[in-house]
């Protein structure tokens, strides 16, 4: 970026690894580098720390350590949960319920399963991104074996009524998985109270390292293996354990859940300051997502008449790092499937901006964005043939 500013507001894409986390990881690269499956001292030391991390994760989720399985990240956890439950239970039925605005790790896995003969219902969400319990209930058939609904959306931050969906699923004897990749570290989770059977998380979303995640699998849930091979993870997930990653994940989840309330209050304040400032200063702007039931750090706008990438590049030149749609689509030409799911027309979906706040952001950052963003939007609109057609008017949508 030009100048010296570097304001990172893309914490939903990924976070930096906190110093305390990295410090706990470091000894496991060069000194305690053993393979946890080895029976010698190097191996036993590594195993001990893998188990400590497992206990930390269990504590953060209200689960048992024996219910925690380490994976290479959120995508693998989602793939495993959905494919694993589908194939393990296909004698009972072939129907899966999810929503049309899940992360692609969920959606593309479901599309794959459709080709393999499974039936998938993609529930709609309302204009704020909320799924209706009634819709879930009505979608259930005799053949339904799995319901998977994300805890909080990665683009617009909407938080679903997870406990209610969990209760409904439990009452009907149907497995319930939730992709909590965006929720962990931002929202209080208790898998027992919320009747969650499976839950995916990914460390790099809460100041842990990339390339390591968890699938929580409640005791008794039938799941076939996804990565076949060695007997790691009690024979359920093969591959030499990423010990530094696991240790880092354990520390990160401990830190994140310790400070959860305090941190989330702080972020909500920043978030609302940003939302209110932008809505006040920039006309033809829509706030995407739920006004209240949203992640503490999530802000998502659509600015009419302009296109998201051009906006992002301009922000980047001013030292502000944001995103447009999910990280995986932000290099692409498609409007976000999430924004289409909440009913935005294509042309408005194209002009979206996601700013996700985190540990490093301050009030000054917000004020700087409020100074720079309106100018950029103005400049791009001046360049836009769509804006020219509007003239005057000043309604936010």
């Amino acid at each position, binding site marked *: 970026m030009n100048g010296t500013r570097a304001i990172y507001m893309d914490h939903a894409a990924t976070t930096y690894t906190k110093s305390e986390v990295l410090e706990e990881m470091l000894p496991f690269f060069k000194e305690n580098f053993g393979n946890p499956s080895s029976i010698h001292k190097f191996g036993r030391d590594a195993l001990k720390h893998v188990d400590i991390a497992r206990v930390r994760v269990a504590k953060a989720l209200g689960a048992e350590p024996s219910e925690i399985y380490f994976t290479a990240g959120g995508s693998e956890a989602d793939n495993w949960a959905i494919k694993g439950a589908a194939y393990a239970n296909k004698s009972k039925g072939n129907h899966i319920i999810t929503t049309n605005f899940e992360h*692609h790790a969920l959606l*593309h896995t479901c599309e794959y399963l459709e080709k393999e003969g499974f039936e998938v219902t993609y529930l709609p969400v309302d204009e704020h991104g909320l799924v209706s319990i009634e819709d879930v209930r009505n979608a259930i058939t005799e053949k339904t074996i799995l319901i998977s609904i994300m805890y909080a959306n990665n683009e617009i931050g909407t938080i679903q009524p997870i406990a209610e969906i969990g209760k409904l699923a439990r009452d009907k004897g149907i497995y319930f998985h939730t992709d909590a990749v965006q929720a962990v570290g931002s929202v209080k989770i208790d898998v027992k109270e919320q009747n969650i059977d499976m839950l995916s998380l990914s460390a790099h979303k809460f100041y842990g390292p990339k390339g390591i995640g968890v699938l929580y699998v409640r005791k008794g849930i039938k799941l076939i293996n996804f990565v076949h091979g060695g007997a790691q993870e009690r024979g359920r997930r093969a591959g030499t354990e990423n010990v530094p990653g696991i240790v880092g994940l354990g520390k990160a989840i401990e830190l994140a859940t310790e400070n959860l309330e305090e941190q989330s209050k702080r972020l909500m304040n920043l978030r609302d300051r940003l939302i209110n400032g932008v809505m006040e200063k920039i006309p033809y702007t829509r706030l995407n997502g739920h006004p209240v039931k949203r992640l503490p750090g999530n802000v998502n706008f659509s600015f009419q*008449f*302009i*296109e*998201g*990438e*051009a906006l992002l*590049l*301009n922000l980047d*030149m001013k030292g502000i790092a944001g995103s447009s749609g*999910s990280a*995986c*689509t932000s*290099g*692409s*030409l*498609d*409007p976000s*499937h999430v924004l289409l799911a909440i009913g935005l*027309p*294509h*042309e408005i979906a*194209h002009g979206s901006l996601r700013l996700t706040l985190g540990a490093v952001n301050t009030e000054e950052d917000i004020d700087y964005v409020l100074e720079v963003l309106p100018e950029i939007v103005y400049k791009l609109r*001046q*360049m*836009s*043939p*769509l804006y*020219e057609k509007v003239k005057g008017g000043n309604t936010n949508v």
Partner: protein
Amino acid sequence: MYSEKVMDHFSNPRNVGEIADASGVGEVGNAKCGDIMKIYLQIEDNIIKDVKFKTFGCGAAIATSSIATEMIKGKTVEEALELTNKAVVEALDGLPPAKIHCSVLAEEAVKAAIEDYMKKQGKEVKTSEYVGHEPNEEECCSKCERKCH
């Protein structure tokens, strides 16, 4: 991801604006697909005296619009019709594969504006005869369908 040339034209786009009584105006693309380019020409004695553009679109869309206007300014109408998307891409020191369609749009916008000028002059021109770009999978409609994978 973008060359310096692209970033230069994106951040300091040349010839942004409108021309009040333009000799010809062309608009291509559509909002649904995320890019619209509109080009205004002022033509005197068969020479493109002035050119302005307005673009709704990504960084590449803005940069290709900007450089295309520069490339045809001062040229004859016939010379301008020879502009190809390939020349636009080259002038920008390349574009990422997913953004090649922007150069196609720029070429098309120039041609549409010239076509409009010709029509106003009472001449009939099939500019498509001049369209220099090769058939492209990344065209708008397939593009909007593209999934994230």
